[in-house]
């Protein structure tokens, strides 16, 4: 079983006389009765834990389930308790399957509430077949569609894990992923700032090693109708150092002649982490003398705010801010 795939799916319920048990599993006997008895407290749980996504990682298995309680006087003991669980190898990162398990629990609840799907032996018998399909399809392509009856079908999709995106500041600038399909030619990218300073990161090496990245880069940064070459691209990227603005680089190398669109070159470098932006932080060294009409601005000069942020929030232009900073000998600049 390749890592990351579902090893087994089982349907368990609380039997009115026999207690917690596995009713169906595919493949059969994957989880032994003995193993189930050891962990059933995490599968057919106390009512306080109903509808929670529970993962138990013991005995070399990782079992992901979501216990369901349906209360209705028609059932023995007035409730139906079941849990449809996915089983994985204990090394698997199961986070991306959690929403599938939860959704499936929801489907079964609806099916039971609407047509007594689980309480009628006739329809319940279809479960092994359904579970087999889910197991095979999800392992094969991560998506499955299983018709149950004329009006109901089960749609499942395994989604990728995503880290939460970072915090967005007012002075941040949106940029379009070239791998996604957008027509960016019609967008006004008011982001062109030649006074910005960038530096290379150790990842710049990937441009030498990764053929695909090279091609992607050359396609993205070449001017229309021209093809830039990697030598010039690397020369420009590596020319970016602290203390050198993009304007300086342009003056030094004339990227236009190399068929390179500098704005796109910078964008690509930022998106792929080949370069990073150095921000300018004005810091006012604590001092008694202050210039009266500028005192309002001092709160921005505590080292926590960069130029982009200050300009964005105060409405000052970079030039006006530069003037203030340069005329106050107590203000120093940190680039980071």
């Amino acid at each position, binding site marked *: 079983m390749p890592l990351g795939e579902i090893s087994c799916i089982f349907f368990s319920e609380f039997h009115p006389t026999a207690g917690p048990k596995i009713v169906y599993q595919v493949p059969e006997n994957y989880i032994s009765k003995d193993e189930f008895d050891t962990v059933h407290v995490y599968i057919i749980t106390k009512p306080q834990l109903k509808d929670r996504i529970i993962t138990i990682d*013991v005995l070399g298995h990782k079992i992901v389930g979501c216990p369901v309680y349906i209360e209705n006087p028609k059932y023995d003991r007035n409730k139906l308790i079941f849990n449809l669980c996915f089983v994985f190898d204990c090394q698997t990162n199961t986070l991306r399957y959690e929403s599938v398990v939860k959704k499936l629990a929801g489907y079964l609840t609806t099916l039971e509430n609407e047509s007594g799907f689980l309480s009628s032996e006739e329809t319940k018998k279809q479960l092994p077949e359904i579970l087999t399909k889910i197991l095979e399809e999800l392992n094969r392509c991560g998506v499955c569609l299983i018709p149950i009856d004329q009006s109901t079908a089960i749609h499942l999709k395994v989604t990728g894990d995503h880290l939460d995106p970072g915090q967005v500041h007012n002075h941040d600038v949106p940029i379009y992923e070239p791998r996604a399909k957008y027509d960016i030619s019609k967008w006004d990218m008011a982001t062109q700032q030649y006074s910005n300073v960038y530096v290379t990161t150790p990842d710049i090496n990937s441009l030498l090693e990764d053929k695909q990245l*090279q091609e992607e880069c050359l396609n993205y940064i070449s001017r229309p109708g021209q093809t830039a070459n990697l030598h010039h691209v690397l020369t420009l990227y590596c020319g970016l150092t*602290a203390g050198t603005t993009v304007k300086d680089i342009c003056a030094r190398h004339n990227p236009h002649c190399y068929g390179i669109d500098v704005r796109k070159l910078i964008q690509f470098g930022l998106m792929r982490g080949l370069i990073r932006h150095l921000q300018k932080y004005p810091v006012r060294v604590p001092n008694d003398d202050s210039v009266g009409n500028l005192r309002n601005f001092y709160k921005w000069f505590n080292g926590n705010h960069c130029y982009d942020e200050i300009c964005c929030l105060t409405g000052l232009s970079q030039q006006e801010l530069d003037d203030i900073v340069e005329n106050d000998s107590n203000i120093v600049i940190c680039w980071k």
Partner: protein
Amino acid sequence: MTKSSIRSPKGPTVVNGILMGYSDDVLANLLTVKAKLCASKFELKIDDVVFIGHPLLLHPVSQETAKRELVTMISFNVVIALLAPIDREILMCYHNLTKQLAIALRHEERRCGLLSEQKRTIWSIQDEIAARPEDSQESPYGPILEKCRLSQQLKHVYDELCSSGVVQLYINKWVHINWCLPHKLHNLYMKDTSHTDTPTHVARPVFRPQKFLIEALRPYHGMLLLIDATTLLDSLPIDASPSLVRLIKVTSPFKSLQTLASDADISLRQVYQLVGHLVYWRKATIIFPLCEANVYVLSPNINTFVNSSLVEKCEESFPNVSLPVILSEFSVPSSLGDHKDVLGLPQQQAQEVQVVTWLLQHGLLVQLHTYVLMTPKFCKSWRQTSHHSVGTDDITDRTRLLSSNSDLNSTASDDSYSLGGRSLEAICDNEDNGPWCPQPEQILAGIRAMRNNKIGALDNQEELTLLARLCPYFDGKHHLEEIMYAENIRRSQLLTILDKFRDILITSQHEDPVISAWLYGAGIKRSRTS
């Protein structure tokens, strides 16, 4: 049954350090495991909370019913509750702590009945409170914490987990627990110096200490102690390795690990292990030994806040130095040599070195190294053709090279014909047989092609030979210092080569990823947008 639940500081189901939404009996039901699950890792995740623990049987199964006393205490579990998602490696680190604690507790139970005794204390408090009239009942946990040593020790563990990430104590004044969460140790440092307040074990790129420890170290690296050597020596346990003591005594930021090995008379391999150990516990960090040519710049994640505690700390160590001013001076890369005031008094020069050392110790500076990239147009594309499908650029480049070579050949003697097509084939064929070491003639041919046959100052055969020898290092992964070390050449020789062949060699300046990994996680990649 004894259970302790240590709670992580924040999250939707963990509020103000308290695990919310679980009644005591539900927790007891979940965390008291069957005998079969004992003596191995226990991991349970419910929505956003991960419970990690190590349940143990108190006595071997056969003796279970031998004594009457045991019927009431068969197994116990030490569990830590954490907010998910959490990196696997960090989780395993926490598991290791629960395991250490559980084994220590079982040892103490067997030695002197610690758990049974503490259990009786807890039960009597609970009974006493339950017996009170209803209006004067209170939670039993306050009084338990007051009277029960076990609770106090577990609370101590919890407090240390939340604050420092280092847990060092004697359970029942007998069993020594010695544990740290290196991720937290190293990130805590970050938290102190950065104003971004990301939860330490979620958003940060995770760095994997064990993988870095030995294999990334090189003889030319150095070690910088983060605390005073005497304090460090005093803090070592009595049974610490004598080699470690010798190593710490000879350590200096000016020495390479190789020098340290010979000064302390231990093998380099052992130095790596000891250094790895010190770095893991955040007693030291890895640097390149201090020298005048070293270039430093501000570390990208530092806190430039003017009222930070660092500013005060800096003033304490160097009363005449203003941290913001020093930081602004290092905003542009500058070498230790640049920064030293040549006209200054020797004491002033010494202080400059001390300031830089201090800045390095506090993670405020990173060293920039110069790496050399030989452009793909010149040679790299030949190397890659055997590993990747041939791109059109490659073909164009190769044809361009070949045709210009044949131009050359038409005017050259028969001998030099071999510089053309055939030798290129040979290069391609040889690729998989170890590193690519072109002959000077091949390099020459390539350069001719690049320079459209204007060879100029290329006659110096010695330089060509050296260039050819150094080619394998020009892949952007070897900094100048490493090349100098590996090939035993002087900086001036190397700089001459870089200058002479600057049209085919590109230099790039950035930090040594091995060193920066210790400063801010697994490389700088994630911090690129901040």
